[in-house]
């Protein structure tokens, strides 16, 4: 196991430069206790590790967070359960961002449950050469406070690949917060399903029926358009050309408590098809977790 610390000086400089711009793009929500937490990035040896880490560092810089500690597993989870269990037990009070392959993620979740973690979000991120040509993100967030989808959509939209993002919320917003709110971004049209567990669907470059087909949403009727909204809170100031870097950025920013748009829905999805969408040349897939230990 190799442990490194992000350069404090780099963080200070980046944070300083960011603040010098006058208006911070990101604001911590009142509900986020994350600033007081030690944040640990655990990289499980996937080919996505390096790019994810670079996105995570960019998010830390933007949010002037200097305490990110990176732990790189030398052995995988399947042969290193003792190491993981040891790390989990030594990390009480920390917030973990974890990047693992599919097999490692399955075992890791078992270990995490047995030490009583509080899971904030999980994501499966896939770009395959043997399946659909778009990049897929399947997210589960425990509540709107820890959502990743909108921020991720804003970021990957800057790139040329087509994508689908689905995000399920385990906890519905409380009744007092159930006023209609929605994510919005230029180029997206948004719809809300009728019924007791509303779904919000945001499509860019494709019609609602096409978007629903890509997302595997079967309900064909009862979709109500949501008026376009501008979400300044999720506007993008930092860009990357690589989708894995963007995932690293969005997940880390979410883990650090970036203020996102709480949508009044049980789940939501984003579909983007560009006219000249580039087909992925290289398969890449990994699983992310954000959790409090």
């Amino acid at each position, binding site marked *: 196991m190799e442990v490194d610390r992000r350069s404090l000086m780099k963080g200070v400089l980046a944070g300083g430069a960011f603040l010098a711009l006058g208006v911070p793009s990101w604001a911590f929500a009142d509900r986020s206790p994350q600033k007081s937490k030690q944040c640990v990035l655990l990289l499980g040896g996937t080919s996505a590790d390096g790019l994810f880490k670079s996105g995570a560092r960019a998010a830390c810089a933007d949010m002037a967070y200097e305490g990110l500690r990176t732990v790189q597993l030398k052995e995988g989870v*399947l*042969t290193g*359960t*003792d190491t993981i269990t040891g790390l989990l037990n030594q990390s009480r009070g920390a917030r973990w961002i974890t990047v693992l*392959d*599919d*097999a490692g*993620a*399955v*075992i890791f*979740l*078992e*270990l*995490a*449950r*047995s030490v*009583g*973690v*509080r*899971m*904030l979000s*999980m994501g*499966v*991120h*896939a770009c*395959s*050469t*043997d*399946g*659909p040509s778009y990049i*897929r*993100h*399947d997210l*589960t967030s*425990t*509540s709107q406070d820890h959502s990743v989808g909108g921020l991720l959509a804003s970021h990957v939209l800057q790139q040329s690949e087509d994508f689908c993002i689905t995000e*399920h919320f*385990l*906890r*519905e*917003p*409380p*009744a007092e917060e*159930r006023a209609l709110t929605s994510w919005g971004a230029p180029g997206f049209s948004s719809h809300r399903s009728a019924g*007791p567990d509303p779904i919000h669907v945001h499509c860019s470059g494709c019609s609602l029926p096409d978007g629903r087909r*890509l*997302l*595997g949403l079967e309900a064909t009727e009862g979709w109500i358009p949501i008026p376009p909204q501008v979400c300044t809170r999720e506007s993008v100031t930092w860009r990357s050309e690589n989708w894995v870097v963007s995932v690293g950025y969005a997940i880390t920013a979410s883990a650090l408590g970036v203020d996102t748009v709480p949508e009044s829905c049980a789940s939501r999805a984003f579909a983007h098809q560009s006219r000249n969408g580039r087909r992925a040349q290289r*398969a890449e*897939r990994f*699983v992310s977790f954000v959790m*409090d230990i």
Partner: protein
Amino acid sequence: MASKYIALPKGVSEKSFDAAVKEFRRVLGEAHVLVKAEQLAPYTKTMMPVPDADHTASAAIMATTVEQIQKIVGICNKYKVPIWTISTGKNLGYGSAAPAERGQVVLDLHRMNRILEVDGDLCYALVEPGVTYRQLYDYFQEHKLPLWLSVPAPSAIAGPTGNTMDRGVGYTPYGEHFLNACGMEVVLANGEILRTAMGGLSKSNTWQCFKWGYGPYLDGIFTQSNYGIVTKFGFWLQPAPPVCKPFQIQYQNEADVEEIVEIMRPLRISGVIPNSGVIAHALYEAALKAKRSDYVKGPGSISDDAVRQLVSDHKMGIWNVYAALYGTKEQVDVNWKIVTDAFGKSGKAKFLTEEDVGDDPQFGYRAVLMRGGMDMREFSLYNWRGGGGSLWFAPVSQARGSETLKQMKLAKQILSRHGLDYTGEFIVGLRDMHHILDMVYDRTDPEMTKAAYQCFDELITEFSALGYGSYRTNTAFMNKVAETYGPVQRSINRRLKKALDPNGILAPGKSGIR
């Protein structure tokens, strides 16, 4: 309607559930009654092709004593709240920790983890449900006990109670776990405590020595069922043999599997090969050595040509046979000669032992498991297709060569109809043979997820029509598999349920029993 809970048990109002939660907290303490989304998220993730929302728990509660469990069942009866009991069985690809139905309360016994007794002379153990194989392994080391465990693939993180209750298997001569179970303590739905067989006599010291007791043998009805909560579990341990010689035999044609089983069966029944013989197809182990994307471009299942290329690139067999010999050096030498003579006769077999393979991961993890050691590299399988989807299909047949190819052809036909790969193995028990398929699929791809559901459904339908029943299945298909065993078995199961758990509070839906 928004609730403060992420799910509610079927037919239970929020007000009633509030009252039940309050009473759970009084018994277990605030910290051991989990209702927040962040706490329950690790209990909700499954690998099945159905929405996780169908299997979301309303709460998870953690007991540490039998008395607490007695009180919990009392509360559940009072408020008609159903509980889904888990401990350290993992059920990956069988539903994981999530309950069979949305809203059930998970009763998590992993903290009930005392090793109550290990007898080094009589070679048995009595444990609580939360004890893991790793804990026992460490205990043997610490106490210098020359005893072996038999572990399933999740080894270190799994435990004997959960695994045996779902009739899981291992890879040593004690690998048929329920065969080596001896004595249980069970909390019944009415709070009574049953100790099975010799455990009924208060002064008996044979609870873990003699399985049958007197009268009907009851232990079996508490496995793969929902008739009680097992709180103590006895099982037999293998004395560590002086010598263990794991070996692999490679074959290069799919049709060779008939010959392999015909040779294997008499060696198994006569005891020359004392552990289950595993006959793994190359794709079952390919992820240890290769990436699927190096051999498949575009949708659909992998072609036979690509499999042959993969096998050749990575020096694998199309079939990879694993077994081990145990005993003194003399015994092992004699049996090795019998094995090599039998398999060597046709000239198709390539024998490999530990000396031949070095640190080859394919051989390596099998050898560890055949010694009862801890190794989870089998789950590399989940990286083959990726995307977090897995469904284990486990039909049982006679241990005859003639049962192999026709099953494999049928499975491949159904799988390829849905664009999925054949990642399978045959496990030769004694007279029976398990055909284990891990149907791995990409859960992020809605089309493939739909196909996986359909495919699994067809596998059950078509295999059962030919008489191949599944010995185990995931929570989304328990009803369907139960149906294949006929109306009389279902009716008996229902009547037992009604008699033992009239309010239906214990794991409704388990094995299709309500």
